[in-house]
């Protein structure tokens, strides 16, 4: 397990800001869902913010990521515009995907986000292909694939990690172990105690990190990204975390006890933890962090208002978006 390292004030505040933005975005999304303004389904990233924030802080705009059905956090951490994200959830023409994708398919290709993915493990080979592009074209770009513990049991995980290892691709595989594959606890899905051990089988480093601690994630991902960027090949990073909400909004969570939910949600809160260590290390004051929180709340309000003002996505041009050329 990689241990946390000391970081400077600017980095600490940047990480905190991203994590707080993700948490606030998820809270507002759930509210909008409850108001029947969001259609379909959403999967909250609350509780896992340290992973997206800590990993993406090591990435450039021209680095690529692939994301998951629980993708809002990755999207925000990679620099997405909140208004366009809300507009997508609200089915507006101004949304990232003009209402075609919704929560499970937000992409932001200008920022290197190759898309959330509704198929568990679907993004792993795609990130591998992006890393192949970087290697083939001789750039120093890096591709990061975010996926959950559930995806680590898909065939795409095996095939992709092997390809990346034999070809020494600039890829980082970030397994977010949030303790459940939908309703199946990890203990019943893995006979190994540490998913990172699987890296040995592919001939790449496997790093197990406390996904609650953004400093630890930031440090571990920093090493993996540097390794990829300098041509030394892929890394598997497994970050332990806890999903605060159910699998999806409205999940009755029959597979968890109330004690677990209430206890773990308090015990595993990377945002609360970050506030604690930032104060303890005297990197910022309570007032500083309150100001960050307030600014983000204002930003979220503005983003929702901007999204709600936009016209609904038009169905007229739907067939035109199927093909790039006719």
């Amino acid at each position, binding site marked *: 397990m990689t241990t946390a390292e000391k970081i400077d004030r600017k980095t600490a505040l940047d990480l905190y800001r991203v994590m707080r933005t993700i948490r606030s975005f998820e809270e507002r999304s759930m509210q909008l869902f409850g108001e029947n303004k969001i259609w379909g389904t959403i999967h909250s990233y609350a509780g896992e913010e340290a992973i997206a924030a800590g990993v993406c802080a090591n990435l450039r705009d021209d680095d690529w990521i692939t994301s998951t059905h629980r993708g809002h956090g990755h999207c925000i951490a990679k620099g997405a515009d909140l208004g366009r994200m809300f507009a997508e959830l609200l089915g507006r023409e101004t949304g990232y*995907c003009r209402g075609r994708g919704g929560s499970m398919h937000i992409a932001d290709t200008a920022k290197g986000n190759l*898309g959330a993915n509704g198929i568990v493990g679907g993004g792993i080979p*795609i990130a591998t*292909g992006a890393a192949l*592009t970087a290697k083939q074209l001789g750039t120093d770009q890096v591709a990061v694939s975010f996926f959950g513990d559930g995806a680590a049991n898909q065939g795409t995980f095996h095939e992709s990690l092997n390809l990346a290892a034999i070809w020494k691709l600039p890829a980082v595989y970030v397994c977010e172990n949030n303790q459940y594959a939908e309703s199946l606890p990890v203990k019943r899905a893995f006979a190994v105690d540490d998913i990172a051990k699987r890296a040995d089988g592919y001939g790449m480093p496997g790093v197990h990190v406390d996904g609650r601690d953004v400093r630890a994630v930031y440090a571990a991902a920093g090493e993996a990204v540097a390794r990829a960027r300098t041509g030394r090949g892929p890394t598997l990073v497994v970050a332990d975390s806890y999903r605060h909400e159910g699998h999806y909004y409205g999940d009755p969570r029959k597979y968890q006890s109330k004690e677990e939910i209430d206890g773990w949600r308090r015990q595993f809160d990377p945002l609360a933890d970050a506030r604690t260590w930032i104060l303890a290390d005297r990197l910022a004051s309570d007032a500083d962090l309150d100001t960050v929180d307030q600014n983000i709340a204002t930003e979220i309000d503005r983003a929702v208002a901007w999204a709600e003002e936009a016209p609904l996505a038009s169905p007229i041009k739907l067939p035109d978006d199927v093909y790039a050329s006719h």
Partner: protein
Amino acid sequence: MQATEARAPAATRELFYNEALNEALRLEMERDQRVIVIGEDIAEHGGAFQVTAGLLDRFGPTRIRQTPISEIGIVGAAVGAALTGLRPVVELMYVDFAGLAMDQIVNQAAQNRFMFGGQARVPMVLRTQGGSGRGNAAQHSKSLEAWFAHVAGLKLVMPSTPADAKGLLASSIRDDDPVIFLEHKLLYRTKGAVPEGEHLVPLGKAEVKREGRDLTIVTWSREVLFALDASAQLASDGIEAEVVDVRTLVPLDKDLILASVRKTHRVLVVHEAIRRGGYGAEVAAMITEEAFDDLDAPPRRLAGLETPIPYAQHLEKSVVPQVDDIVRVAKELVV
């Protein structure tokens, strides 16, 4: 071949179908550094059907990227590479293996552009081959074009001649959408005149491979050759069949098919894939909807039996349309 489109006369020579494909790959790779080939056994071995023979020596192991046996990994890597600036050509050894890669084909390659509101493009070609006739039995002989035709976002190409194979592959590689390029294992060693140098056959254009006035046979892939043989036999009985080679199933060249049907008033759709849910049903329905008043008889379909492909040679032949079957049904239709 008769009634080809008017084009400037290019020097041609006789090539096998697999040589024509090889030439298209070589020319496109010379033309565009972003084109890479990725798949199993494609390097020293030259591909299971020798389509990539010699390309390793010409382009090296990074552009002729041989992979482990990992179908979904290969196709998914091609999707990611296509999204980020390469133009990968995947070789999937048998179309029957597409099941292993189907998520990346259907949920990713085909839909990324649409799902992301037009932000992305996926310029990749998935070359593979299908069809029976070589004793490879049920897991290596299917004709699965209907699977791909049913997915919004894919283009679907099935060339029957060496010249079309070359021209359509070049166009597919230059296309900005995912193209499923289905070859037929028994076409690889068929020969035909192939233009030298750059040769492009546009996607979405069918071709009349034989002109006739009495009925239209609409078909694709290896059944085009069967239909031409059948037409020669029919001609000796005074029946002139027009053979339309669809070439590109998606997008479908409705105009050319309808023009032919409006001339002959009778249509037979032939394909090797099983009849139930086959693409022939789509073609027949399209004709019925668009040219009902021009028809003198209901459209007929001649297609594979609804069984897996059996192994033994005589059994194998018995489940897919042969030349005699086309002659028989064409006569029923015309009489």
